[in-house]
């Protein structure tokens, strides 16, 4: 169909005035034709639902009857009834979930970054079995999150779990720990699974950056007798910093919207809920589309803000770069 349109247009285009050749014109036209289907689909399944979610956050919509709702302004976010403040921003559960998510993101991404650098440095060295090793670290990444959560749930089982057994044998704990049911340890358990699953992603991105580094600097450093630690902090780290930054941003954005891992691992407990879990709970379990959408909108704004800040910071840093 597209080719027929392009061919039919050709004679008309040839007569068209302007500096651009007919070929360029027909290509420009086809560019929009080629992009249109994707844009329409994305507008339908991403743009429109996002707009509707933001709109719902200003209404009292109910999941059972989404067509019958009233505009209530900012009441889902913050409202005052007889001097008493209500709404999302006054809900301690919401702030608990915000804190959980931020804590989870900071801790897991930090650990993943450090471990990712270590793994990448190892994979960058030449040793027999390197290809096999790279395949092995990809396995946790490929396992569905639900499955990983269930596997770890079983390993962390308080009575029959292998992790309690190991720690008891080594003598690190005196009695079995209820890892996933206890709010203090459950988020650490989530961090452990996330690190297990996502360190390889970090490592592979860093490895790609490592492999693009010029080798002559390292030879020069070797000739000058610079210690390996110094080489790493003075040469390698600054050079891979841009790639590292990208990897950290990608992982952080991913961790900030965490849902399935915590949902399955800690069996939907309020103390360990993430922002996404809180929003879905309001939306689906309590049928409060207005409140749930308000939470969703805030999550969107938080993540959008972080994207804008990091993009801006990255640009500034690039501008300052003297090289």
């Amino acid at each position, binding site marked *: 169909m597209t080719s027929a349109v392009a061919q039919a247009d050709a004679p008309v285009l040839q007569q068209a005035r302007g500096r651009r050749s007919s070929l360029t014109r027909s290509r420009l036209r086809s560019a*929009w034709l080629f992009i249109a289907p994707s844009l329409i689909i994305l507008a339908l*399944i991403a*743009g429109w639902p996002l707009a509707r979610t933001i709109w719902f956050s200003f209404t009292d919509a109910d999941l059972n009857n989404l067509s019958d709702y009233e505009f209530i302004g900012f009441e889902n976010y913050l409202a005052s009834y007889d001097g008493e403040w209500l709404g999302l921003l006054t809900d301690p559960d919401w702030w608990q979930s915000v804190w959980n998510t931020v804590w989870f993101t900071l801790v897991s991404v930090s650990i993943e970054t450090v471990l990712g650098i270590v793994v990448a440095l190892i994979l960058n060295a030449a040793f027999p079995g390197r290809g096999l090793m790279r395949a092995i670290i990809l396995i946790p990444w490929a396992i569905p999150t639900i499955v990983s959560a269930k596997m770890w749930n079983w390993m962390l089982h308080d009575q029959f779990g292998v992790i309690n057994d190991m720690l008891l044998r080594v003598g690190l704990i005196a009695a079995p720990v209820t890892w996933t049911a206890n709010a203090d340890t459950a988020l650490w358990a989530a961090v452990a699974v996330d690190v297990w699953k996502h360190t390889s992603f970090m490592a592979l991105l860093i490895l790609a950056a490592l492999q693009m580094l010029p080798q002559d600097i390292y030879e020069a450093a070797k000739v000058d007798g610079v210690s390996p630690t110094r080489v790493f902090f003075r040469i390698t780290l600054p050079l891979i910093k841009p790639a590292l930054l990208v990897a950290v941003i990608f992982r952080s954005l991913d961790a900030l919207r965490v849902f399935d891992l915590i949902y399955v691992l800690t069996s939907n407990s309020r103390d360990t809920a993430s922002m996404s879990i809180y929003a879905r709970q309001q939306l689906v379990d309590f049928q409060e589309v207005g409140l749930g959408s308000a939470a969703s909108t805030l999550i969107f704004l938080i993540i959008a803000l972080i994207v804008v800040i990091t993009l801006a910071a990255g640009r500034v840093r690039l501008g300052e770069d003297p090289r």
Partner: protein
Amino acid sequence: MKILPRIGFWLLVILIGVFALFPLYYAIISSFRSGAALFTIAYLPERFDVSNYIAVFDRQPFGQNILNSIIVAGSVVAISLSLGMTAAYAFGRIAFRGRALLLMTILAVSMFPQVAVLSGMFELIRSLGLYNTLPGLILANLMLTLPFTIWVLTTFMRELPKEIEEAAFVDGATPWIVVRRVFLPLMAPAAVTTGLLAFIVSWNEFLFALTFTLTNERRTVPPAIALMTGSTAYELPWGTIMAASVIVTVPIIGLVLVFQRKIVAGLTAGAVKG
């Protein structure tokens, strides 16, 4: 002097390998133990009891769940690739006004938190009559796969030399023919890479699948595993869950091992070069 760092290096390699593989290994040996044996801890496989594997398909429509996952992931890959390929041609090869802005917008969509569109998507899917159907899930999953498919394919498309299409245009080919005859064969490796990534994303997707399906027969694998219950509400059928986990993980691991290099290329093309 040199032997000590070498030993340390290999110990580290082994440690990473064990850390990466142990949970899967433990799931596999657990899946072959059932009854009371499951509740004693074993580090080595000592029996080969397949009753868990029979129970998975016996107690719930797990075969149907797997089929659903294959249908959804397969359709998502096919649609993402065909839409993504044409869009990537335009983004990668034609300099039109607003290109950079559009690409940034598409990248921004891939950073959307899924939950941000949840209520709007719920309304959309229900109004289209697709609630609790596989097409509904396919539509929703496209939001996750289409943006990065376009993005990764565009970076691959840009790397192809310029002369390729010029020769074709001189010979009088239309853009559509150029895409189909010239770029499609050249982009086949990139398509395999992005297709695999899209497949894995869709195969692993949980939030949409949990929210937009209602009945056991319509569920894909992740919610089916997450919602597996035992004979009583307080006792989870760990053996069955482990068997189900192994069943759905082994094909994915096979894919990863076979296409390891391609997947790594796709992951890094999406992030580093972007």
